[in-house]
């Protein structure tokens, strides 16, 4: 597995898209910090960009890399190596190379600005951590979708739909449900719904860390009470880990049975 990982990683990290992705975060971070001069605001703005872009890039790279490597996968499958090593290695290679672009691109501006060591360090770390989680989660989901769909157009479409659903539609439905059942106590319900969407979950984690949950009113208070304590934090990261492990397990299961 590390053999495959290594080469997929080197292949991707050298592609110009990785560099563009790095530069995007790097420049955005610099602009937000040096023009705004407000670290909290910069983190919130970066968060809004990250939580849309990271899942999207993970989705696109997961699907594209699988389809582009289709013939090379066949060559690897004909080698004396178990299937799970090929697919797990490929998946980790994609996720790690994207995470590296994200990590360096986002962290460097803050290092230059001298944020590390200040009160905002923790918020930044949580932002980076959730960005990396989202990369791993959405790469796994889209890689799985590509594995299931031989038709490239369909695979690409389904993967983008999943991203669209998680990024935008889910929140709308969430809000509608809250409005429809506003007479009932909804604390537990809304916490469960948040745990079921990794993007929402990451957003809440940052909001709480930045201590702006008051902006969310009553729900914010509930979340603050739940997620603010250490067991809430633990549960959130457990949920994110589960969100990563589940599609990876599906990838391994599907790839062990598939005809190529």
């Amino acid at each position: 597995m590390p053999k495959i990982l290594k080469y997929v990683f080197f292949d991707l990290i050298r592609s110009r898209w990785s560099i563009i992705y790095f530069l995007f975060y790097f420049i955005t971070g610099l602009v937000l910090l040096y023009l705004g001069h407000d670290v909290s605001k910069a983190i919130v703005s970066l968060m809004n960009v990250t939580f849309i872009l990271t899942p999207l890039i993970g989705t696109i790279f997961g699907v594209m890399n699988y389809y582009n490597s289709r013939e090379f996968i066949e060559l690897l499958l004909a080698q004396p190596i178990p299937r799970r090593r090929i697919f797990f290695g490929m998946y980790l290679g994609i996720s790690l190379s994207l995470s590296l672009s994200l990590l360096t691109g986002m962290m460097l501006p803050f290092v230059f600005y001298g944020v590390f060591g200040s009160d905002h360090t923790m918020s930044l770390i949580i932002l980076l951590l959730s960005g990396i989680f989202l990369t791993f989660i959405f790469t796994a989901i889209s890689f799985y979708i590509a594995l299931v769909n031989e038709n490239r157009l369909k695979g690409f479409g389904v993967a983008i739909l999943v991203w669209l659903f998680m990024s935008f539609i889910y929140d709308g439905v969430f809000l509608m449900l809250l409005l429809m059942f506003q007479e009932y106590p909804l604390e537990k319900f809304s916490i469960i719904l948040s745990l079921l969407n990794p993007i929402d979950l990451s957003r809440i984690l940052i909001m709480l860390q930045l201590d702006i949950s008051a902006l969310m009113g009553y729900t914010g208070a509930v979340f603050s009470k739940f997620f603010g304590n250490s067991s809430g934090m633990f549960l959130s990261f457990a949920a994110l880990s589960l969100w990563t492990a589940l599609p990876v397990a599906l990838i391994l299961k599907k790839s062990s049975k598939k005809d190529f």
Partner: protein
Amino acid sequence: MIEIKEIKKSFGRLEVLKGFDFSLSDGKITAVLGPNGSGKTTLIKSILGLVVPDTGEIRFQDKPIKNKWEYRNQIGYMPQIARFPENLRVAELIKLIEDVRGVAGKTERLIEMFELAPFLNKKLRQLSGGTRQKVNVLLTFMFDCPLYILDEPTSGLDPIALIRLKDLISAKKAEGKTFLITTHIMSLVEEIADELVFLLEGKIYFHGTFEEMMQSHKEDNLERAIAKILEENA
């Protein structure tokens, strides 16, 4: 070396392999022929474990291959389409395959033979289709295997490279290696193959030598003999 019994494979409602027995003769070059969609690729992929047959058994060196992967270090496989990770260099790709197989390949003579030295430090995306196909040949033959499976090996090769490939195949055969080759180029088959397997609609229509094929169809040319089979079964 390979024994196949009652192998069947369907994709959805499409029955591609309809149950046949087949055994590959050791130390010979066997050409698998047949029209598009006759099951050539599925047969090869089943042997390599890329496709899992619905029923039937495939044995390699007297052991069933189902759910096994170790046996593949005895097989050199050359896929039809040579597409590799674009941003890797040729030398890195060679290293990757060596790493995966856990053996160092014998590359020097092949690099010389196919004049690949100037390309070793180039990225694969900078290579022409023909050069990539030469890399494909190199990756296949740099390991010493008792069995080589070549899927349309001539596509994209220039005449010189093609002659070198034929020489390479002959040399390996002289060492006692076994070959399974699919191709549409009849002249290649006539030139190098010892045995023919003709697949038609998922079954083996014919398995034997040239002479047997020509005699049974009363033609003196392989292309015509095959055209005749196809017409008779249209």
